[in-house]
């Protein structure tokens, strides 16, 4: 019959004959397939002929009975699954879940076979008619008949949640079974998993941990609580790995984090004796790391930690810098700041994973409290002074760098960097002039650091000081050589340092009458110097020098290292045994304050009292009389007599420095204003203030009132004018 087949649509033509020939064909064939499906569910598949079944289904589809086949399959499978549902429901107690799992595995296997038999239908009929493919159909039917079966649904969920609860309370459960069942939910489709299992599961989880958190928090301290929370969290993550869908992990941890951490953050960090503050003070790195890792998981968690840390830091920092006890010893003061910084640096590195936001919080806190104390710049400079004078002896180069870097870090926090510069200049001058600096390299290294931080301008004068020192050394060598050549030997050896005015912090007008033998040398030097450097003017800064004297006492000889003033005083006693205060003053013309201080250090300090004062007392009075102390002894041969003066500045000196600083700021502010106005031409008051502040903040924080004064002064000098219409606007006059 195929011989008559037309050339087109070969496939269909021959079978049309068959349909006509056998009207019962479809029913008979379907019967075969239906029986086979039952057999498959009854585990009797091995007796079936795949070829026959496939051929039957193939022919049914070819004969346009695809619809009958598909409908038949749906009905048969539905009936089959309803039977299964009955069996599952009948299972008692613990066997319920096992039965369900068993049936599920059965169904999968059967479904696989059925799909293979109906492969041709899946490929043609289902695709053409947009039907649900056999496999998916089987899953949907299972979902509706079993998982969403009114009698099974709740029981299943309750069983699962009970099992999880049991495991959470420490019992061992059959994880494999759990895994299979949850896998079933996933296989049935994401929505089934989400709606029928995950959502109720998460709700139950939230309830569980809400209760547990309540209980923990009332019985545990912060450390314990966090430990427990961490453990719970890991358990849940493990749970997901064992028998839940991977996608559940983030949701599950979110729930646990919210219930255990998020809802109790404030309470936890503020827990007395165990909260954040206690951890910080007691260096509990491990606990802090745990807190960081847990709090990081919840929104605003880290912020909570950071905020509390900041306020704690500010509080303790404030106490530190405003504690009057601490201010007695600037070195100790700065050391404490450095220690504190070190402590928190270490803490952030070890516990907070070097979190940038925490580092910023730390920095801003330091900036906040360091500037609470207006003397911080001075103290930091004093700290450097101390380190460079003696503190760095025997310390390796790297360590020196380390200390300097730390100081620079504190320096960065300072708002009033110009104040620091002022003090630093003074201290550096003292160090250089008294030759007490330990390491030139360290000095220079610090200057370089300051330069990188604040620019050339900041350090040019400091560098000028170093240059002066070097030139002076050369000059002195030349001078001495010349003295020797001229046979002009003297038992007084004069060391002169020529300082450039402006580079050095000089106290003007501190004149004193030098002893004639010194004066003679000085004049020689002056002539020598001016002969090579014409047009310059030398003036003697007697308040900054030092002198080594050889003194003979009744019992011993000593070498005394004294200031120039003290030398002037002591040399008077070469010709007299006793001198009154008035006589000394008349002879030396040392300023009153300095004279008193120097006399005090010569007469009133134990072990250094080369003079004797009458009447005996701590303070020097204008009526006192001084004697050469013949009985002076000291086991050391070389004795340094310091000048009694606080290392720190006295109150009036402080005021004076302050005033100087303010004075120095004026031109800087004016320069900034002019710079800004030159480019902007027209600007209103508030903007000028903010721009000036921005420009100058690397050096200091200008006071708006001061800026306003400067603007007014510039208007007076006709650099600026007020706008005629709008009084708040300023105009630049070129």
């Amino acid at each position, binding site marked *: 019959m*195929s011989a008559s*087949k037309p050339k087109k649509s*070969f*496939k269909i033509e*021959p079978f049309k004959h*068959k349909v006509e*020939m056998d009207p019962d064909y479809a029913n008979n064939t379907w019967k075969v397939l239906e029986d086979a499906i039952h057999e498959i569910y009854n585990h009797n*598949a*091995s*007796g*079936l*002929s*795949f*070829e*026959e*079944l*496939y*051929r039957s289904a*193939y022919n049914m589809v070819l004969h346009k009975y695809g619809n009958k086949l598909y409908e038949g399959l749906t009905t048969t499978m539905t009936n089959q699954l309803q039977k299964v549902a009955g069996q599952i429901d009948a299972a008692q107690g613990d066997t319920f879940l096992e039965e369900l799992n068993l049936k599920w595995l059965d169904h999968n296997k059967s479904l696989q*076979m059925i799909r*293979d*038999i109906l*492969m*041709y239908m899946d*490929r043609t009929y289902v695709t053409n008619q947009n039907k649900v493919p056999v496999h998916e159909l089987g899953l949907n039917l299972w979902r509706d008949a079993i998982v969403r079966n009114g009698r099974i649904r709740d029981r299943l969920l309750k069983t699962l949640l009970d099992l999880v609860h049991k495991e959470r309370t420490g019992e061992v459960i059959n994880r494999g079974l759990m895994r299979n069942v949850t896998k079933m939910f996933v296989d049935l489709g994401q929505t089934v998993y989400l709606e029928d299992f995950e959502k109720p599961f998460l709700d139950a989880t939230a309830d569980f941990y809400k209760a547990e958190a309540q209980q923990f928090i009332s019985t545990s301290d912060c450390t314990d609580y966090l430990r427990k929370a961490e453990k719970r969290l890991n358990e849940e993550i493990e749970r997901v790995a064992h028998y839940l869908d991977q996608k559940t992990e983030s949701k599950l941890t979110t729930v646990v984090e919210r219930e255990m951490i998020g809802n109790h953050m404030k309470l936890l960090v503020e827990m007395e004796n165990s909260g954040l503050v206690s951890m910080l003070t007691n260096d509990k790195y491990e606990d802090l790391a745990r807190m960081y890792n847990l709090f990081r998981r919840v929104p605003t968690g880290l912020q909570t930690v950071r905020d509390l840390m900041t306020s704690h830091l500010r509080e303790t920092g404030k106490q530190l810098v405003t504690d009057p006890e601490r201010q007695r010893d600037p070195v100790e003061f700065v050391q404490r700041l450095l220690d504190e910084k070190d402590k928190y640096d270490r803490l952030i590195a070890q516990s907070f994973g070097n979190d940038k936001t925490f580092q910023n919080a730390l920095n801003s806190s330091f900036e906040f409290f360091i500037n609470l104390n207006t003397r911080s710049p001075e103290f930091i400079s004093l700290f450097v002074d101390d380190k460079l004078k003696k503190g760095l002896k025997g310390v390796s180069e790297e360590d020196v760098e380390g200390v300097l870097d730390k100081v620079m870090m504190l320096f960065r926090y300072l708002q009033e960097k110009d104040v620091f510069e002022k003090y630093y200049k003074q201290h550096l001058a003292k160090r250089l002039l008294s030759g007490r600096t330990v390491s030139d390299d360290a000095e220079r290294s610090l200057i370089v650091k300051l330069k990188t931080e604040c620019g050339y301008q900041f350090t040019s004068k400091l560098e000028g000081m170093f240059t002066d020192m070097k030139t002076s050394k050369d000059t002195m060598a030349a001078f001495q050589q010349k003295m020797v050549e001229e046979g002009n030997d003297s038992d007084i050896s004069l060391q002169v340092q020529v300082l450039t005015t402006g580079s050095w912090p000089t106290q003007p007008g501190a004149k004193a009458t030098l002893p004639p033998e010194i004066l003679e040398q000085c004049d020689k030097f002056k002539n020598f110097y001016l002969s090579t450097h014409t047009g310059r003017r030398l003036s003697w800064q007697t308040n900054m020098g030092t002198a080594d004297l050889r003194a003979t006492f009744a019992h011993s000889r000593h070498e005394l290292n004294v200031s120039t003033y003290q030398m002037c005083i002591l040399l008077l006693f070469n010709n007299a045994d006793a001198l009154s205060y008035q006589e000394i003053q008349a002879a030396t013309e040392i300023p009153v304050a300095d004279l008193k201080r120097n006399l005090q250090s010569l007469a009133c300090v134990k072990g250094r009292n080369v003079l004797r004062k009458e009447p005996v007392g701590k303070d020097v009075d204008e009526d006192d009389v001084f004697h050469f102390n013949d009985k002076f002894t000291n086991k050391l041969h070389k004795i340094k007599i310091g000048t009694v003066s606080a290392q720190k500045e006295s109150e009036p000196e402080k005021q004076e420095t302050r005033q100087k600083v303010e004075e120095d700021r004026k031109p800087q502010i004016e320069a900034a204003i002019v710079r800004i106005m030159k480019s902007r031409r027209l600007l209103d008051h508030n903007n000028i203030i903010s721009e000036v502040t921005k420009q100058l903040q690397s050096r200091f924080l200008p006071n708006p009132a001061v800026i306003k004064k400067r603007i007014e002064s510039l208007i007076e000098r006709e650099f600026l004018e007020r706008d005629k219409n709008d009084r708040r606007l300023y105009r630049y006059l070129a």
Partner: protein
Amino acid sequence: RFYKRGEVCDRNIRLKILDESKEGPEAAGCEEIPVSSIVLAAKSLVLQKMIFAGMQESDKGAPMSIKVTAEEKEAFKEMLHFLYAGSLSPRLHDPATDVREVVRLLVVGDKFEVPSLMG
């Protein structure tokens, strides 16, 4: 037939003619062909499922019985050739051969899901 040459054959296919008019005993035109189940499974999805479905055909001791209509029989054998050789037998290349034979091969190929014989 060169696909029979191989020692790799592990199964026989018992090819039976299906009498369409009456479902009688299939005595007529029964033929056994030794085949390699691996080759078949690799090339035809349906044969693969048949071999591994766990039904009668999975019994390695017995021949796989496949029923075909009379005109399908030659086409089925041509398909086996194709499964082994990857190309049509020389006979089908002969212009004298009825083009309908090729068409039948394609129909059979579709039925057994041999990808390279399908659309």
